[in-house]
């Protein structure tokens, strides 16, 4: 059994700064276990993946319809030579998918997070976005994470229409970047067409 009582201790009476610092630095901190780094990083990356499953991650406004398809078409963006586009900030790809919409992928690599960025999509005559057939300009506000981000636009082009450009603008902090994407002719035997009503 131990008792606690007060005694005069000779050493600390004139404790110098360096002695005090020595005692302070020796005060123990338990080391985390061997799996600490792995466990923490796994949890952090898992939390990010969970967050990415939300549609908003790809700038998507409410009810945006193409999250899963956009992820799958990432390879197409690379393989179809879309990087040769004259875009100042993005690549695009066309998905020859029969009667489904052409999905245009706009890739934005932001060096930092852009909170509250305004994204505006302006469509040419004869083109609409699936789910927004009566709208030729769509605008919404979103946080754009740092790094690579992709905006997928499910484009429907009116039968007999070719050419025209889709304009994508991003505004943040008073700055603005714009991209014009040419709508190519639908591939032979493929491509989507709609009849506007």
């Amino acid at each position: 059994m131990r008792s606690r009582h007060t005694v005069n201790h000779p050493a600390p009476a004139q404790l110098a700064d360096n002695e005090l610092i020595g005692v302070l630095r020796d005060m123990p901190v338990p080391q985390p276990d061997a799996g600490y780094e792995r466990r923490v990083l796994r949890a952090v990356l898992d939390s990010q993946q969970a967050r990415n499953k939300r549609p908003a991650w790809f700038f998507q406004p409410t009810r945006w319809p193409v999250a899963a398809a956009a992820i799958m078409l990432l390879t197409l963006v690379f393989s179809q030579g879309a990087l040769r586009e004259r875009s100042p900030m993005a690549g695009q790809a066309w998905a020859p998918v029969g009667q489904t919409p052409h999905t245009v992928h706009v890739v934005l690599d932001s060096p930092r997070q852009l909170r509250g960025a305004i994204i505006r999509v302006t469509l040419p005559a004869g083109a609409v976005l699936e789910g927004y057939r009566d709208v030729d300009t769509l605008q919404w506000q979103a946080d754009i994470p740092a790094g690579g981000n992709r905006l997928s636009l499910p484009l429907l082009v009116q039968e007999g229409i070719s050419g025209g450009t889709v304009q994508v603008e991003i505004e943040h902090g008073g700055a603005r970047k714009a991209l014009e994407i040419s709508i190519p002719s639908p591939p032979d035997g493929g491509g989507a067409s709609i009849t506007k009503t």
Partner: protein
Amino acid sequence: MNTWLTRFFHAPRSPEDRFVSLVSPHLRRMYRMAYRWTLNAHEAEDLVQDVLVRLLPRTAELESVERLGPWLVRVLYRRFVDLYRRRCASPIDPSQSLDDTDQESRLPGDGGEDLRRTEMQRALQRALQELDDEWRDIVLLHDMEGYTTIEVADIMDISVGTVKSRLHRARAKLKKSLSPGTLQISEAC
């Protein structure tokens, strides 16, 4: 090809991989500081994880930081203040001491010099808890973890002069706590 595209499509590593490479060397140091502040292993790990979750989307920003170690500790400190200090009157659980929890197994045996040092550490721990938050933070960062006064000033967002004056006063108070008549020694009956 423009710069944006070049950077995006030629980048061989994902942002997540880059993030892991950036922060991995600093994880143990972050844990140490988190533990110094929270005095609890689980809360220290949770605090580090919380900060990293917030930083993951900012990988590009992290890459531009010149000295990432102190920068991460600054973020950690601010998050600690947000999560703990503003929530509680004191971040220190007064019931927690070197007598229990994680630190028990680290204490030396009952040998003479070891015991004296252990008792000094216990007295210091109590004295640290009695310091003002800002004074204690400076002691933790500067005297216990070895950050320079400039780094401490940057981490705590105060002037170097303030760091020095608070450090001086904090040390004086700590020394006083170890002066004759105040140091308690445990002895076997």
